[in-house]
Structure formats: structure tokens, C-alpha cells
């Protein structure tokens, strides 16, 4: 996540009156739900998973070496509990202006550390530090082994990052042709600590997934509860055609910090009739995006990780899956900005690891 300037005081928000009573009733109802049985051979085991990657980002001729590791710890407890956490260690090194050896620092962030309680088929309760469910990129597409292009979308910093508080979420079928998913959350802690940034806010996301055409559409909303009480909203779209190995994702977001959209597609060349052994491992990806400056200054926008001026960007790249969870990536993009145009080159490798922390037996 990008650096943000925030209030450094820690403050808690306490809900009051009818809301507090409802929370109590909700907890009582959750406890009364019967548990599922599991045999020893299928009892979940703790796992250490995550991603590691190394990339060369060349932006406007400036080379940056980027090495990162993002460990994820998953600890299931009983039939319905899950403790999960992800940290991010990223070293970014580049030569200073005028030449010299590569230098830079290693950033450390705790992306999430949460306890999930799967209450029933409709509700999962999450408490702790969690990824803010605004749009789909932050929660689902952020890991480097998942994203089709390694550059962050321009609008990613809008209303995303991490939140500290409580969240209710779930997904359930509305009928045979549609599933509904939702997340509603309260972030109660405002923190500007370098590794634990978060804002006080409330928000929610709702989406409808149509399994037949494999289309998902949804909307997100967030209200900031800092000194400033601004609203942000967004829309997302995902489509995976049944007849083509194609993945299309798109988001739109708007806030007083700015607005914009991105749309990207990833096409696996598995249907190409020649060199099939190699082609089915190859993926072509492209993205188009645009950012419009908001009501904040250019310096404030850049401190949030947003462009300092209106910006358009196009990018395309190739991903080659060497092995399950291991892919080589290369991409080229061109950015058009009021601050100046630039080329964006990326070359690197991303790896996903999965290690059981206990006996798993044989498959």
C-alpha cells in the first residue's frame, strides 16, 4: 500500500443505543448456530502461504528494483473459526539522481490480522484489521501472483487499504441464477503508524454474481469519520466468458480525492492451435485507465499515492506460467499526464508458496 499522511492519534468509536442492543442480539444469535461435523482426515490444518516476487520497474527512464515477500498465515480453529493475517515486506531500491549505487528502504506493513467466525451460510463476522472491502482489486486481485499486470491501478488508493474494526460479510444464492454477496464494516481506529495505517470510517459493498454468464456487478460506499466526513463510492464489474479463457475486470471510484476507472483483460492463449504446450501457459493482458484529480492539492494526492494531475494510461503485457503459482511477467505501458508523459516498463517474476504447518496425510 502507498504511504499516507494521517492523523497519528488512536481513537475508538463506540456504537450507542439501538445499535448496541442489536449487536448484542446478533452475537447471541450467532452463538446459537449448530456446528458442522468434520472427520479427522478433512479437519483443516494451519497453513503458511503467500507470495514472493522480484520486479524491475522502469518509470520514465528511472529503474527501480523491487523485491517483496507477502506471507499469509491461516489458522483454522474448530469448524467455524479462522485466524488469518498477511504482512508485506517490500524493498524498493534505485539509484539517486546523478548516479551512484542503488539504495532504498524496506517497508513493512500489516495488511490484515483478523478473526473470522462463520456464523451460518449467510453471515461471517470478522473482527480485527482487515482489507477494506471497497471495489474488488484491494481484496481479491492485489496479490502479485493473481494480478495480471503488476502496476497498481491509478485509483487503487481511493477508499481502500486496511481498516481496524468489525465487519459482517457473506454470500448466498438469491435464486438458481444469482448469488448475492455483501460486506458491511465499521473501522473504529484512526492510525497513522507507519505499518498500521487506517482511517475511521463506515462502509459497505454489495455485489450480484450470475453463475450462468459468469458476470458480477457491484457497488461500494464509504463514509469517512475523520475530521472530514466525505463520501466515496464505486462500482465494479467482472466477467469470465464461458467459451473463452478470458478474464475481464473493471472498477470505477469517486471521492473528493479524485475519480477514475480502470478496465483490464487477461486472455490465456490455451485455444491457439499451434505450440499448444507453450501457448496454454501464456497469457496476454491489457489495461486502460484514467484518473481525474479531485478537490485536494497535487501534493496531498501524491502523499496518498494518487497521481498529482489528470492522467491516462494504457498498458499491455505477457505472463508466462512456468509452474503452478510461478509466473514470469513483462509489460509496457504509456502514461499521459498533465505533469508529463512517461513510459512504464516492468519485468519480473512472481511466486506463490503454500506450506502446511501440521500433518496433512496423503491426498
Amino acid at each position, binding site marked *: 500500500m502507498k504511504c499516507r499522511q494521517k492523523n497519528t492519534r488512536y481513537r475508538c468509536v463506540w456504537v450507542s443505543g439501538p445499535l448496541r442492543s442489536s449487536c448484542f442480539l446478533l452475537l447471541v444469535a450467532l452463538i446459537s448456530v449448530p456446528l458442522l461435523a468434520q472427520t479427522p482426515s478433512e479437519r483443516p490444518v494451519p497453513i503458511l502461504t503467500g507470495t514472493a516476487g522480484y520486479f524491475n520497474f522502469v518509470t520514465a527512464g528511472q529503474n527501480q528494483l523491487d523485491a517483496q515477500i507477502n506471507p499469509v498465515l491461516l489458522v483454522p480453529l474448530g469448524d467455524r473459526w479462522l485466524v488469518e493475517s498477511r504482512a508485506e515486506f517490500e524493498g524498493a531500491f534505485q539509484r539517486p539522481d546523478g548516479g551512484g549505487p542503488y539504495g532504498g528502504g524496506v517497508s513493512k506493513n500489516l495488511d490484515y490480522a483478523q478473526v473470522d467466525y462463520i456464523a451460518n451460510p449467510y453471515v461471517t463476522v470478522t473482527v480485527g484489521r482487515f482489507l477494506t472491502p471497497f471495489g474488488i482489486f484491494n481484496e481479491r486481485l492485489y496479490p502479485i501472483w493473481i494480478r495480471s499486470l503488476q502496476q497498481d491501478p491509478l485509483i487503487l488508493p481511493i477508499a481502500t487499504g486496511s481498516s481496524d474494526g468489525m465487519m459482517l460479510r457473506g454470500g448466498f444464492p438469491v435464486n438458481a441464477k444469482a448469488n448475492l454477496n455483501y460486506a458491511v464494516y465499521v473501522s473504529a481506529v484512526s492510525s497513522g503508524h507507519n505499518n498500521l495505517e487506517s482511517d475511521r470510517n463506515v462502509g459497505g459493498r454489495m455485489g450480484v454474481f450470475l453463475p450462468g454468464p459468469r458476470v458480477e456487478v457491484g457497488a461500494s460506499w464509504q*463514509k469517512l469519520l475523520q475530521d472530514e466526513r466525505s463520501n466515496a463510492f464505486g462500482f465494479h464489474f467482472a466477467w469470465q466468458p464461458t467459451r473463452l479463457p478470458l478474464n475481464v475486470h473493471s472498477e470505477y471510484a469517486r471521492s473528493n480525492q479524485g475519480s477514475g476507472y480502470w478496465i483490464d483483460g487477461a486472455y490465456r492463449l490455451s485455444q491457439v492451435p499451434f505450440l499448444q504446450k507453450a501457448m496454454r501457459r501464456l497469457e496476454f493482458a491489457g489495461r486502460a485507465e484514467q484518473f481525474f484529480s479531485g478537490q485536494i492539492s497535487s501534493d496531498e494526492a501524491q502523499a496518498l499515492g494518487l497521481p498529482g494531475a489528470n492522467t491516462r494510461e494504457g498498458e499491455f503485457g505477457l505472463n508466462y506460467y512456468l509452474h503452478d503459482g510461478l509466473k514470469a511477467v513483462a509489460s509496457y505501458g504509456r502514461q499521459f499526464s498533465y505533469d508529463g508523459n512517461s513510459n512504464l516498463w516492468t519485468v519480473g517474476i512472481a511466486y506463490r508458496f503454500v506450506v502446511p504447518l501440521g500433518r496433512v496425510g496423503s491426498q
Partner: protein
Amino acid sequence: MNFKYLATIWLLALISAIAMASVQPRSRTATEPAVRSSTEADAMRLEGEKRFRANCGRCHATPQKFPPRMMATIVRHMRVRATITDEDMRLVLYYMTQ
């Protein structure tokens, strides 16, 4: 209507949903939702593969299959992360562990 009342209505609606869900009988195990015959098992595998491609393929490439105890953890994690439905989770887990 202010935020507190909207939130109250929202939470009461969730409580109702939980109450409805809690009266449904549940005796099956996590990965074997009432398999009675090999024909039914085959049908479940096919349906599981379909749900797998629809849900998991939305975000990432097909991963390898892991031992059942690892898959149980991964699917639980993905259920929370991707808000997939309870039925989808069971069928995907069944498919990935067969």
C-alpha cells in the same frame, strides 16, 4: 433516516436470516454433502468443477490440488475472502479433494 437506524434495521435483518438458517438440519460432514451413490458422486464432482471454474476462475488461474486438510483451510479462507456461498464452498471442496 440516519445511519444508526439504518444500521439497526440491517442488523435485525441479519438476525432473522441467522434464525432461519439455524433451524435447518445439518448432519453431513464438510466435504461430503449427502453423497448416496457413485452416480450422485460423479454429478457432484462435475457440479463442483463447474462451481470451481465460476468462482475461483474469476480471480486467478487454476491452482494444483492439495491434500484434503490443506484444501479445507484454503477453501475456508477463500470463502471469507471471495464471499462465495456455502453451497459453492462445499462443492468446490468436494471437487478439489476427490
